[in-house]
């Protein structure tokens, strides 16, 4: 129990880092401020490990501990405390957020070397870590929302960190505004939960969720999903994530790959009783997830920006996680979230290392043959590549396989789940292919950067390669998290207290084996075709896949015209609605009512003021006649 109390330190240390860096911003210089921030993250990670072991030593049914915090809001039976909820789910999240976060902090010390506003960058990073840890550890929806908004703010600040570039400033704004759409859903969901259940405490809300009517539960689940879709870049709301690549690469790795964008998945897994009770929402989540996975993968096929490919890949993998949530395979979603954090952070940091050694070049058309110049980056990047492609012993295989198998079985009554599985399988094939394309274009093939760079590309300093090596190791062995142990799976068993839903299991060993084989074969085909097509890199400066896809390739390249579509939607129907609301409704009805009331009062006043003559005798006469009338009534009736 006492070990579990250390959970306060997990968000507390990064907050302390923010305070120290903010107060000492004039005196702390590079690299000291970076080390302070990193130290705080490592401290948070160590606390998370201690809390984990403390929680692990408790009996299984006691593994949901609510730590009471200071009261925040109290009004007539409505009380919000800064409570922490320590349970296997939140601790798992805290572990990988602090773990991956520490590595990325360390890497940033090297990556941000010589940058202006070095200290400010690390202040923001620590602020982000604090908000993210509040998000995962909060025991109350409103407190969770505080973290939710905090990560959104930090995302904005860090995307537009290089605000001198107009594109970066615009991208930050876009991310922030798009996220507001989701936040609006979150707030409505909280209003619904409070009005029907009378509490915002997560544990009590979840335990009384089955008392809700089916329609209300579905509405809550869908509103929470709207919030998740904004934060985790799902459906048409994903347009902000590729632009978010304007931020420094460690930010892309930490916020826009490993942690913040998975907050939506966490929110839905945390609130799974609403999904369980309103199954129609599950269908929506699964379908949007699968389609997002497919669409984002096709865009990644033809993009040339090394970071944008990874961004679309992130959207696609998030789609997988939501597919898992939609079919009710919550642990598979969390499992994939953790392994994805490992290999996607690795890939992003690897991309950052490439850019670092190539004078910030981001266009893969002007890379190639870098294996020779940056061997550590190349090897670790290729481990990440095999992991995301789903090749057998690597982390991505285990988690992706679990999602696909669960989709095939289709536990939560999701309709047409074979079709969903098919979309997932095609996406797996595409994933393997576009990642192979990236690896071939960046690390193999001819050296197309010659003549463009002032120096030869060079390997990054050790402070950047060490995190790469650690993440690569995790990407290799991360799949072991959920290996079967005594018939049950490790992670599944551990999460069981927080997610007590029967895991979706394939019917027989043979079926499971067959599904896994199909997944590996698809990944293998993607890789082989990729290697075959890109064996010489670009052909005459043309991308062979773009050439083959023709018009379809242009559609993919323009992101399925989603950006213009969203812009059109906001500009035309959105603006029309806003103008209708502004002109006739606001100015006519609402302002009219207010001004009308004022006009009536003025008019009445103008007439009634004539009574006030100012002559004393008039007042006296009024008084006298009033008194006479009263007396007369008394005389006649005996009473008033």
């Amino acid at each position, binding site marked *: 129990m006492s070990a579990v109390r250390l959970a306060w330190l997990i968000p507390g240390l990064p907050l302390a880092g923010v305070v120290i860096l903010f107060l000492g911003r004039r005196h702390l210089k590079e690299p000291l401020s970076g080390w302070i921030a990193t130290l705080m993250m490592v401290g948070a990670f160590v606390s998370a490990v201690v809390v984990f072991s403390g929680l692990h030593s408790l009996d299984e049914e006691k593994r949901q501990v609510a730590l009471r915090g200071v009261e925040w809001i109290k009004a007539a039976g409505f009380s919000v405390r800064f409570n922490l909820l320590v349970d296997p789910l939140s601790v798992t999240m805290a572990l990988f957020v602090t773990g991956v976060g520490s590595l990325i902090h360390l890497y940033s010390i090297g990556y941000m070397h010589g940058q202006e506003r070095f200290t400010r960058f690390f202040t923001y990073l620590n602020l982000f870590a604090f908000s993210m840890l509040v998000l995962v550890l909060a025991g109350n929806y409103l407190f969770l929302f505080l973290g939710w908004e905090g990560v959104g703010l930090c995302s904005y600040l860090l995307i537009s960190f290089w605000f001198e570039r107009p594109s970066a400033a615009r991208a930050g704004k876009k991310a922030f505004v798009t996220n507001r759409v989701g936040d609006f859903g979150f707030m409505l969901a909280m209003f619904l939960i409070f009005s029907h259940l009378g509490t915002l405490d997560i544990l009590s809300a979840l335990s009384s969720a089955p008392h809700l009517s089916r329609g209300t539960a579905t509405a809550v689940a869908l509103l929470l999903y709207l919030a998740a879709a904004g934060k985790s870049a799902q459906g048409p709301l994903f347009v902000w994530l590729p632009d978010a690549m304007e931020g420094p690469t460690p930010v892309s790795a930490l916020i826009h790959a490993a942690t913040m964008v998975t907050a939506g998945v966490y929110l839905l897994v945390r609130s799974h009783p609403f999904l369980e009770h309103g199954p129609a929402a599950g269908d929506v989540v699964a379908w949007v997830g699968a389609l997002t996975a497919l669409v984002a993968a096709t865009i990644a096929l033809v993009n040339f920006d090394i970071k944008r490919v990874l961004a679309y890949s992130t959207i696609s993998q998030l789609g997988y996680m939501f597919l898992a949530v939609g079919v009710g395979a919550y642990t598979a979603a969390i499992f994939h979230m953790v392994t994805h954090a490992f290999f996607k952070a690795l890939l992003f940091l690897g991309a950052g290392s490439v850019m670092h050694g190539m004078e910030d070049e981001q266009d893969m058309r002007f890379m190639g043959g870098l294996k020779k110049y940056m061997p550590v980056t190349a090897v670790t990047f290729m481990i990440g590549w095999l992991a995301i492609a789903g090749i057998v012993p690597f982390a991505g295989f285990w988690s992706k396989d679990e999602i696909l198998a669960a989709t095939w079985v289709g536990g939560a009554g999701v309709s047409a789940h074979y079709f969903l599985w098919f979309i997932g399988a095609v996406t797996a094939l595409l994933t393997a292919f576009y990642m192979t394309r990236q690896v071939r274009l960046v690390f193999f093939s001819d050296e197309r950067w010659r003549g463009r760079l002032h120096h030869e590309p060079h390997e990054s300093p050790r402070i950047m390669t060490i995190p790469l090596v650690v993440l690569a190791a995790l990407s290799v062995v991360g799949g072991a998290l959920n290996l079967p142990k005594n018939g049950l799976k490790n992670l599944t068993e551990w999460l069981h207290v927080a997610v007590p839903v029967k895991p979706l299991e394939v019917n027989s060993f043979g079926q499971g084996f067959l599904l896994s084989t199909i997944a590996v074969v698809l990944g293998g085909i993607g890789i082989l075709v990729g290697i075959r097509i890109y064996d010489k890199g670009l052909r005459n400066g043309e991308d062979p896949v773009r050439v083959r896809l023709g018009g379809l390739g242009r559609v993919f390249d323009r992101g399925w015209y989603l950006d213009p579509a969203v812009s059109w939607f906001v500009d035309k129907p959105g603006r029309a609605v806003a103008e209708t609301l502004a002109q006739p409704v606001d100015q006519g009805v609402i302002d009219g009512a207010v001004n009308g009331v004022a006009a009536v009062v003025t008019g009445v006043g103008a007439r009634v003021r004539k009574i006030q*003559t100012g002559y004393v*005798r008039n007042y006296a006469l009024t008084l006298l006649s009033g008194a006479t009338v009263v007396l007369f009534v008394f005389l006649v009736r005996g009473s008033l």
Partner: protein
Amino acid sequence: MSVPGAWYLTVAALMFCIGAIGLLVRRNALIMFMCVELMLNAVNLTFVTFARMLDDIGGQVFVFFTLVVAAAEVVVGLALIVSIFRRRQGATADDVSLLRG
């Protein structure tokens, strides 16, 4: 032989009406003020009469209160009239109609 109570009441009613009419028809602030006093004392007379008729000392106690209040009112009222005299030529109440709406 004593005068019947009704006579006193009649006198009081007459005094009250004279005071009230005087208050309404005169313009001079000082005269109006005297009319108010007349009305007050009419009421006092009524109080005393009823106290005697009903054999209840309460009516006489009320007269004390009325006298004290009237004394205070005279102080304030005369002060007002004096200050109006200082600023204006006469003491016509209708000249002072600043509260007209």
